[in-house]
């Protein structure tokens, strides 16, 4: 984590970010900074602005005022192609109109790297192959997306984002529709990518205990404002969580790991 004002070290940063939907303001001057190599989770109740913030950070939405800065350059100055080479995005759900195979889908991650003719070269194939190996999707690379389970599908979409060779990976509720085994598998994969390859990761999550277990930094937001920001133990205070989620919550420490665990009181 870095201090406000120390802008040179941040890989992704917002300055005075303002955004709202149809005149209803959501962010009124948000300042946020993510350092290279961080793995952070964005948590907060429904409608708190998690997904919107992620879309502002990826450039899918444009802020009304303020700016997003990616490695020192304003995001608004970058083309979609330049952004895609730096930021990979994993949405909550992916629906494809036409049925592509896993490898075809992963290769779509190379779109921003292709030349005029739009055909993959050896380095594109190598990048896709590596992304599939690290996500464990290489074993079913020729199956159709429609034939995959929810977990396999999400791994494929993560592989596609990795094939972009990004510096930052943004994930929106990547485990929303998955069972406990696949949730652990996805978070384990994210932590591995973060530790081994130094990939900066920011993910939203409704599963706050899972986020606390895998992320070293938790950002708690409500109504477009950051309510708490720090290590899981600092953010998981019963009074803060109960107030933000408007539900009485208790926090206990996991006996084995010492990590905080929130549950209804």
């Amino acid at each position: 984590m870095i201090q406000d004002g120390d802008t040179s070290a941040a890989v992704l940063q917002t300055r005075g970010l303002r955004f709202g939907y149809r005149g209803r303001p959501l962010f009124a001057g948000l300042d946020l900074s993510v350092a290279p190599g961080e793995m952070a989770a964005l948590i907060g109740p429904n409608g708190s602005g998690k997904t919107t913030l992620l879309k502002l950070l990826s450039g899918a939405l444009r802020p009304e005022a303020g700016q997003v800065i990616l490695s020192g350059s304003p995001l608004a100055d970058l083309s979609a192609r330049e952004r895609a080479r730096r930021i990979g995005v994993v949405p909550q759900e992916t629906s494809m109109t036409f049925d592509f195979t896993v490898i075809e889908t992963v290769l779509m991650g190379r779109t921003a790297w292709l030349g005029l003719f739009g055909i993959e070269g050896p380095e594109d194939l190598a990048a896709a192959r590596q992304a599939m190996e690290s996500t464990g999707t290489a074993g079913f690379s020729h199956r159709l997306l429609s034939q995959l389970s929810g977990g396999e599908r999400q791994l494929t979409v993560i592989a596609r984002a990795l094939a972009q060779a990004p510096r930052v990976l943004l994930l929106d509720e990547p485990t929303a529709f998955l069972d406990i085994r696949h949730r652990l598998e996805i978070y384990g994969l994210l932590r591995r990518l973060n530790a081994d390859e130094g990939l900066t990761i920011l993910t939203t999550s409704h599963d706050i205990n899972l986020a606390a277990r895998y992320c070293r930094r938790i950002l708690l937001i409500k109504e477009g404002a950051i309510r708490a920001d720090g290590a899981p133990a600092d953010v998981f205070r019963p009074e803060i969580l109960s107030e933000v989620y408007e539900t009485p919550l208790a926090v206990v420490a996991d006996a084995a790991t010492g990590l905080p665990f929130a549950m209804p009181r």
Partner: protein
Amino acid sequence: MPSTGAAATSTPQHDDAHRSPAGRRFARGRSLLVLGFLTLLLGVCVLFSLTVGSTSVGMMDLLIPSRAADESAAILLGVRLPRILLAAAVGAGLSSAGVCFQALLRNPLADPYILGISGGAGLGSILATALAPAAGLAVIVVRPTAAFAGSIATVVLLLLMARRRGRLLPETMILLGVVMNATIMAAIMFIVTMADFSRYAGTMYWLIGNLSSPSAGELALVYGCLAAGVAVLTLLGQGLNVMSGGEEMATQLGVNVPRLRWIGLLAASLITAAAVSLAGLIGFVGLMVPHLGRVWLGPDNRLLVPASALLGAIVLVMADTAARVLFAPTQIPVGVITALFGGPCFLWLFARRGAGAA
């Protein structure tokens, strides 16, 4: 992918080798093979179509120079060949435009005819005929230009209506197209009724899609538009692929979506307009051929666009051959043949979608 085999055996519940599209990934060698095969097949179909008709001409008559052959050559090269070349261009144009509309609108049921884009081109074309002072070179250029304006206007209207309602279901877009088509048809019928009928000889045939022998200038124009359009759409192939996941996903993967959409729609509308201004409203080719191509080759537009163009050329050359010879000496408009086959095909696709298959 060397790891495929091993992993497939380790997870037998996922062993779907019977329908695994292995090796479908875009590969230059395979694409050239497919396109070469289709070109060859198109050549055979053109030759076959040349030899059949109300006047029977053998291939040998062409090759052996004699007086009889001169007469045959006049029929073949002066009458039959231009019509076959036009059929090929129109089939190729409607099919590649269909691929583009389906990808950009994220709708496997899209087709220039069903969406009313052909109708828009037809209205422009009819208006030009009604207003253009005389025949001649001007008409060769003015009619397609007006057709282009008509098709573009229809596409823009369709997109604006789609935009205003946010996320639009594919079925809703089809419904909009059908309503637009009906309105355009009424406008066309109004113009034809009010104007001098003698200037619209063959309009009824034209409305359902009819091929006749075009002039060399007309052929040059339609092939020029076709070549430019198909080349552009093929280069947009990967962008069209990525659009399959939606606008936002395409942007996040590095595609300039507004630019892709405008270039793609302009190119597809240009091809459609050129085809419609010469051959009228031929339906369902742009729906059936891309679907056939996708079943055979997969959805990768970098191959699907040129392959559908060739496949569409083959389909329309054969359909027009049938239109010429099935009930000879009576010739039926080729649009009747494509609609008789295409209508049920559309219904089948629609039913399959309802059952959960895209």
